[in-house]
């Protein structure tokens, strides 16, 4: 809706303050209730109703390190996978997108189509196709956990693509790079000093959203028999539901922090008004 029309009276389009408050409260409760319930659950002592910090302290006490070893392996594996996936996004997707934007604008639709495909393919279908591929991957790169990032690099494509593309659309990268080249900059300098600083927002958003997707991934890891955060949590939940819920809460908290950081870095660094 155009800004000019916001002063005009628009009957029936804008809810009253009260209605807005009610809607916000209902949505807030729907979101918060399960979280509060999870938190409360982690303080329970058995199923009787008494509360204790016991589950939290045992999870982080040195003695239980062995009990929860698979969990910690899962956490560290997931972080490693997140890092490699982000590296794939930055090294493969980002330069491809910049190149297409600058030199091959006709390929933009093709690239967009390719990048959106993974969102239409259910993870389970993806795994069926990936299983034989991974037989070869294992032969070439060995069976290390990080190879799973090849698959994750594909599953995060749609999210990373959108984040970077919206930034590319907002910046006139063609003129900026031509200006930089006319001033004597080679391609590396154009990329490093001109394009990347102006794409910072999209790149960070793509990286964070990739991390969030990887940390929440279960299907592929489970079906390819790898241990990551989610598979470890499922395993633990069968023996100790309290710890599983604590992990779920921590993972959620981490994702929230990521989202907040994305929001923060998305804001322009300096005042955006040209009052002069």
């Amino acid at each position: 809706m155009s800004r000019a029309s916001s002063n005009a009276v628009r009957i029936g389009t804008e809810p009253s303050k009260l209605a807005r408050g009610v809607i916000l409260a209902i949505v807030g409760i729907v979101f918060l209730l399960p979280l509060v319930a999870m938190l409360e659950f982690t303080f329970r002592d058995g199923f009787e109703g008494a509360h204790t910090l016991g589950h939290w302290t045992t999870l982080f006490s040195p003695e239980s390190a062995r009990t929860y070893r698979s969990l910690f392996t899962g956490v560290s594996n997931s972080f490693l996978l997140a890092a490699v996936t982000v590296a794939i996004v930055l090294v493969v997707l980002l330069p491809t997108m910049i190149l297409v934007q600058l030199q091959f604008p006709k390929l933009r639709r093709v690239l967009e189509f390719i990048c959106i495909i993974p969102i239409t393919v259910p993870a389970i279908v993806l795994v069926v196709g990936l299983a034989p591929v991974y037989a070869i991957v294992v032969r070439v790169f060995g069976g290390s956990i990080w190879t799973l990032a090849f698959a994750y690099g594909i599953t995060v494509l749609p999210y990373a693509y959108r984040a970077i593309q919206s930034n590319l659309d907002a910046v006139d990268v063609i003129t900026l790079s031509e200006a930089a080249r006319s001033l004597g900059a080679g391609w590396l300098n154009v990329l490093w000093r001109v394009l990347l600083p102006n794409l910072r927002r999209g790149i960070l958003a793509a990286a964070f959203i990739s991390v969030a997707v990887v940390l929440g991934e279960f299907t592929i890891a489970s079906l390819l028999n790898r241990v990551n955060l989610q598979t470890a949590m499922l395993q633990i939940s069968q023996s100790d539901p309290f710890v599983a819920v604590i992990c779920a809460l921590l993972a959620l908290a981490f994702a929230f922090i990521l989202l907040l950081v994305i929001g923060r870095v998305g804001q322009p660094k300096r005042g955006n008004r040209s009052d002069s």
Partner: protein
Amino acid sequence: MTIAPTSSASRTADARAGATVELIDVVKDYSGQRALDAIGLSVAPGEFVALLGPSGCGKTTALRSLAGLESIDGGEIRIDGKNVVSTPTNKRDLGMVFQSYSLFPHMTTLENVEFGLRMRRVAADERRTRALEALEMVGLGTFASRFAHQLSGGQQQRVALARALVTRPRVLLLDEPLSALDAKVRVQLREEIRRIQTDLGITTLFVTHDQEEALAVADRVAVMREGKIEQIGTPEELYTTPATPFVANFVGLSNRLDAVLTDGSVAVHGATLAVLGAPQPDGPVTAFVRPEDIVIDPAGTIDATVLTSSFLGSLRRTVVATADGSHLSVQHDVSERTQPGDTIRLRLRGNAVAVSARE
């Protein structure tokens, strides 16, 4: 805004009196469409040449080919006698100002101007001094710490000009740098560009679709059409002796009058006028007569009725209908007042006119 030539400016002029630029039979195709059709252009050191033409005539393509931003499909581009066709943009040592605002948004004005010097590995102190001098030159010395979004359009283009000139390039390329600005700023900035260009003595190519702008600032104007240069000459030459009907029609305002060509002269409204350009076969033609070549004269031979009359400040332009129903635009002194409906008499001055064959 006045600009005194700064010390750096005069130094620059001494160091580099501008380079020669030559386009020799340059050909460029865009997916089967010929954008540049064997263009030939030679620009002397320190000369200010405007490339003028309607959109799609190839003027921007010619400039971008010279900058190395477009590859060419044939011909040679020489700067100071050296063929630069295979030299990448960043090695051609050119300064360029673009039509769209091109300041780096994440840098301050000063950092923007310093960019070219940074690429040439100039020491930090000298870089800062020279960048500040360049900003002074465009009248924005106090804006060093501003960001692009804190500047007006005209100020952004001034910074872009300072940024292009600070490296003391061999050639300055201006790709419609004024077209996004409003009329008053446009006139002010074009005069400023011309003054700075004269001070620095830098060879300059200026692309524009605005004929008034081209005539006002350039030493010579190349009128382009469909990938070819129709005519190149001083503004006076283009205006008074257009080589082709296209030039006559595009540069300045012209009345198109039906006439018959016989023995190298045309008879129009009772006057016999000489014909410009190459000799043409006799027959029906369209003659292009300038509004200022028609005068209001009670002893004139053309009877006309005034349709509209507009006051243009220093002159008045009156559109009339003649007896045969054709419309004429007449330019005259403001003291000669005409009212719609008036009947007046007109006379042709007798200056030579451009003609084109009529079907």
